[in-house]
């Protein structure tokens, strides 16, 4: 017999569509999306992890004028205890470990005795800020460029899409590195804006594609025939239908953003000393790998935890908005 494709053939309408269509209580679009999202277990796990990381990073060492609960700072040095080994222990004593213990320096200390937990938390804060900035900036630019090109067509579209092509011609990391070289000196906000300014091209193309196809749909035609203003058509009729694509890709932009920022910081082009990010920490301590490996492990684990969580959330959102869309990392 045939090999499986146990997925219901979409052309026939999935059985759940049928079931939902038949049921007496019609669900709203929002409810359906929420229900599908919460069915995605990895996405829920991602949300919990990401939430935990954010809370840990900001509550522990505090931020701005707000103090945190952790008594050490990421800049004050102290004497190095026990070769700077981490005191964190997660293995209960009956399993042969040291018991569940937080200790004096849970993540250890670096060579001048700075508490590494505080340092990693600081790096996490900075990396998160930059990643979210990248997400916001690239989504804003990508959505506007794509929407403008897709809606107005003609000359506007040609100019915008040519410009997008030019930017795509420069590999993302290269372009980001060039802009970050200048912006990185000006602090993390400038860095986030600069990287966001080069990572929007994929979204612009996606949104333009959505717009082109939505333009031709009856309800837009009808609105246009009724003399509705372009702006109103865009915001009232087309935008709501592209929200899914935009939200999903904003999420993935954040995941890509944290990898890009940490890579640039690793290369010395992103967050600069004396400030730290998860990437610059790895660059600082990569040579410590053979002797004090924890200095290398912790920041990496946090990068992976954040990126993986965000990617899972993105996958859950995509499933919720459009179960049939596929994904590419740019």
């Amino acid at each position, binding site marked *: *017999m*045939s090999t*499986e494709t146990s997925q*219901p*053939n979409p052309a026939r*309408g999935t*059985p759940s569509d*049928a*079931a939902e269509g*038949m049921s007496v209580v019609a669900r709203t679009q929002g409810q359906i999306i929420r229900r599908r999202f919460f069915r995605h277990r990895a996405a829920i796990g991602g949300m919990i992890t990401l939430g935990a990381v954010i809370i840990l990073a900001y509550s522990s060492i505090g931020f701005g004028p707000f103090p945190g609960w952790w008594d050490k700072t990421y800049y004050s040095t102290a004497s190095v205890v026990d070769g700077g080994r981490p005191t964190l222990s997660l293995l209960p004593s009956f399993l042969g470990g040291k018991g569940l213990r937080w200790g004096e320096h849970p993540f250890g200390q670096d060579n001048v005795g700075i508490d590494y937990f505080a340092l990693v938390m600081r790096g996490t804060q900075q990396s998160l800020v930059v990643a979210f900035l990248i997400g916001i900036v690239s989504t804003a630019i990508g959505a506007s460029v794509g929407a403008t090109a897709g809606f107005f067509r003609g000359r506007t579209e040609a100019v915008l899409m040519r410009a997008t092509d030019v930017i795509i011609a420069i590999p993302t990391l290269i372009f980001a590195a060039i802009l970050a070289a200048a912006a990185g000196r000006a602090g993390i906000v400038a860095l986030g804006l600069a990287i966001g300014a080069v990572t929007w091209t994929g979204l612009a193309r996606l949104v333009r594609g959505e717009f082109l196809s939505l333009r031709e749909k009856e309800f837009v035609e009808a609105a246009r025939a009724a003399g509705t203003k372009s702006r109103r058509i865009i915001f009232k009729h087309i935008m709501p239908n592209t929200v899914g694509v935009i939200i999903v890709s904003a999420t993935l932009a954040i995941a890509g953003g944290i990898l890009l920022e940490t890579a640039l910081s690793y290369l010395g082009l992103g967050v600069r000393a004396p400030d730290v990010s998860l990437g610059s920490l790895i660059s600082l301590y990569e040579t410590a790998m053979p002797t004090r490996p924890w200095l290398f492990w912790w920041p990496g684990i946090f990068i992976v935890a954040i990126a993986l969580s965000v990617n899972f959330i993105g996958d859950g959102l995509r499933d919720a908005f459009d179960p049939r869309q596929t994904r590419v990392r740019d």
Partner: protein
Amino acid sequence: MTIPSDPSMPSEPSKEAKMSDRPEARERARHVEHPVNDAPGRPQLAHHLDEVKPPSTEEILRVEGLTVNFPTDDGVVQAVRGVSYAVREREVLGIVGESGSGKSVSSMAVMGLLPKSARISGKIIYRGNDVLKMSPKEQRSLRGRKIGMIFQDPMTALNPVYTIGDQLAEAVLSHETVPRKHAMSRAEEMLALVGIPQPKQRLRSYPHEFSGGMRQRAMIAMAVINNPDVIIADEPTTALDVTVQAQILEKLLEVKDEVNSAIILITHDLGVVAGTAHRVLVMYAGKPVEVGETDEVFYRTRMPYTAGLLGSIPALETASGERLRPIKGTPPSLINLPPGCPFSPRCPLATDVCIESEPPLAATDALDHLAACHHWDQLAESDDPTVFFRAESEVGR
């Protein structure tokens, strides 16, 4: 559930006899038949059933109590709930029904093309052997060799990256060990048979270089290239424009005689069935609800759903000048079907018994005319079964 003892036995009373039996039916027949075949937008068949070779008595394929379930996240979809029929050599069996009634799923089960998740039971007997009990290898050797299939959408049913000739020859080569050249010349013959000009050159064309009608012809050629006993045509003309529809149907009938095969013609277009099928099986919610000779089913309808279908042919004016109305409502969900007649929520004749128990497919007043309806006799008493739908829609207004 009652399975008819043998729905396939040739019916004895001739058409003439039936007609003269009931003058009023004959009267109405003029009203219905002409509209069905002459209504604007209907394919004009030059090549009528009367002109093709009659079916023989040799039974080729018999389906008994076929059920297909799909387990899904939301429950088990009962796509087919007990379908039985048989076809004989050169016979055309029409299967009609609304979208989602299980027509495709039941024929895909015969082809062995359902996804692995499908749970199939019942019997599919090809020349005395149960297909469902065969090894995958034996099943494969039936597919495309003994049972050919034509699909609905010719635009997507051909592989865009291989030439027509390659795709046709492949059908031969997968069952016979012959030189490629030989298979290619068979392909060329078949293209000529289905009426594609310059077949030799066309072998080298890609599907995108063909028009929709030509692609469907190529599909027919592909389905019959191994002289199958049965051709399953799943809505072969739905995606085509009207003039092409007629040509394709005609070609199909012509080819059938050429290779002596039976045809199972699936459609939701009654006009297509009227001109081409010897017998008709009407499906609703995964079950046959009316089976019989085409004329019987059309002129002496014994099931309100069929009547509704007849009534819903668009732009059709009846003798009294009333406009016919489509059946209201939608078919039931195939998950958790309620007890009772599945058509009852939409049926103008429904009574309490309909809601309580599902009517079996049982004999009606005419031999071999089976219907699944508690109140088929009410239809028998009325002149024009579609009248119930008209009345209802007028009340609704």
